[in-house]
């Protein structure tokens, strides 16, 4: 008799809790869905569904690079030290690389056209190296990062103003393996 009473109490508690849970679930959607469905077209709703992980899994290396999941950084004229304002970009890149620990990266160092071919190859190398070292200082395994210098042989934009030169003085981060 006592056992039946205990069982009854437990069961009723479970039912009570369940009911409460269901109520909580139901309450939230009731307030919002009307607004959402009216405003957003179907295609746009799909996009936010993909998490960073899903993007990484689904996209090819080429697409990831095309989408520039790793952002490039720019340098001062004739210099190869990492600029203060570029450090946050490197931090974001480092976070991404640390998150997807299987990736391997090639850092390409580039220069603007206001240098000789020979010196620019060396300068581009120094820029790529500076970017690599900075990523390594943020915890990225240096063995995953290779560097290459293109000097001024792969300029991004054609132009003879400082804005164009600035865009060309850069390090790009290319994913080579995921």
């Amino acid at each position, binding site marked *: 008799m006592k056992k039946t009473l205990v069982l009854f109490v437990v069961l009723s508690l479970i039912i009570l809790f369940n009911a409460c849970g269901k109520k909580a679930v139901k309450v939230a959607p009731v307030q919002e869905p009307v607004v959402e469905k009216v405003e957003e077209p179907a295609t746009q709703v799909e996009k936010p569904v993909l998490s960073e992980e899903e993007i990484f899994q689904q996209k090819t290396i080429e697409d990831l690079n095309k989408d520039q999941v790793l952002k490039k950084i720019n340098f001062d004229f*004739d210099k190869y030290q990492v600029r203060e304002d570029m450090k946050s970009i490197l931090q974001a890149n480092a976070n991404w690389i640390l998150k997807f620990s299987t990736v391997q990266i*090639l850092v390409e160092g580039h220069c603007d*056209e*206001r*240098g*000789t*071919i*020979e*010196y620019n*190859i*060396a*300068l581009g*190398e*120094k820029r790529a190296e500076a970017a690599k070292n900075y990523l390594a200082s943020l915890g990225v395994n240096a063995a995953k990062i290779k560097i*290459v*210098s*293109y000097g001024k*042989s792969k300029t991004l934009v054609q132009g003879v103003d400082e804005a164009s030169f600035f865009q060309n003085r850069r390090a790009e981060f290319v994913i080579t393996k995921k």
Partner: protein
Amino acid sequence: MKIKQIIFLAFIFFISWQLSGQEEITIRIKEGMPMIPVALPDFQFAEASLPNNEIKSLIYETLWKDLEFSRVFKLVPREHYSYISRFNANAINFKDWASIQANILITGQLEIAADERIIFSLKIYEVNSSKFIFGRNYGGKKDLCRMIAHKAADEMMKHFGEKPLFTSKIVYVSETGTDKEIYIMDYDGFRPTRITFNNYIDMLPSWSANNEKIIYTAYRHLNPDLYMFDIYSGKTELLSSGGVNYAADWSPGAEQIVYTSSKDGNTEIYLKDMKTGQDKRLTFNPAIDTSPCWSPNGREIAFTSQRNGTPQIYIMDAEGSNIRRITTEGSYHDSSAWSPDGMRIAYVSRIEGRFDIYVFNLKSNDIIKLTENSGRNENPSWSPDGRHLVFSSNRSGRYQLYVVDYDGRNIRQLTTSGENKMPKWQRLPK
């Protein structure tokens, strides 16, 4: 006693001053040497020859342009030939040629067979003594016309104690669309021949000492590695990889190259024994060291270093010791090229955003500027006789190759199509 010593020292000083003075004078004489006035009357056809005027004028014009380019010979203007009686190979009137100020008379006779086989006979006379100096016969098909003329011009240079250069070639990078390939052409820009066929970037070619191989950098495996291409066998071999590998210069005296590499983590200058393949690192500096270039006697190496903050030109002994700085003004210098006589170094300076070619005289410390206010001028390379330099310039919009004389005179454009860069003139094989 003391007075004697002083006199003796003064005497020594006087002698050494005299000697250095003498040296200075010989240099000036060589550079400002009056050119030899030569006359080049129209070539004659041999009796049995086909009267092919196209071949005749091709050889004639090529020879004329070579001699005009030389800075050794001065051609008596063709208009003056009309003042005297027509050239007759059988009865040369030397007095006539003397009257229009010709010292040397160059005559040519052509025998062209039905299959366009050519025999070109060159005869050189000294006008004042009415004497035959030397002659040569050249044979070949029509497509060798330019070569026949270049060989004849080289013979002229050699006979007058100068180094031949008209059969020398220039290696360079030509870009059409996105393709960057290596080409070889004659010194005057004619007969370009493509030697690499690939889709990756090829750059900074240079010659081996015997001019049979081209060393260049290619991004074949997505990395700038150093390769050597044998022009005659067509074989390519990898010389150096890991990091950047570029700007090779073959030693004039030994089976060695110097080049730039960052295989140990930083751009440094290396010396490679081409027989054993063994590397020896020559520079040890956390700064950028690049663009090595041999002195013509093989004892020293000029290079670019950023060890004092900005790229400057330095010279070191071939073992890597005794480093001294050459450029003292300006904040950007690179691409040094040592003249064949060992006395001058040509290089590129960037001053206020302009790139121009300068020549530094190692004896007098004088610097002369070869290019002025005309685009970016880069990668100078000396002719085998040291009287001319080839370089690339974007003065006409796209990069093209140009030649200029040692004193900045006679700039002429060699290439016109696509974009052409990084020229290296052959040296004279030993």
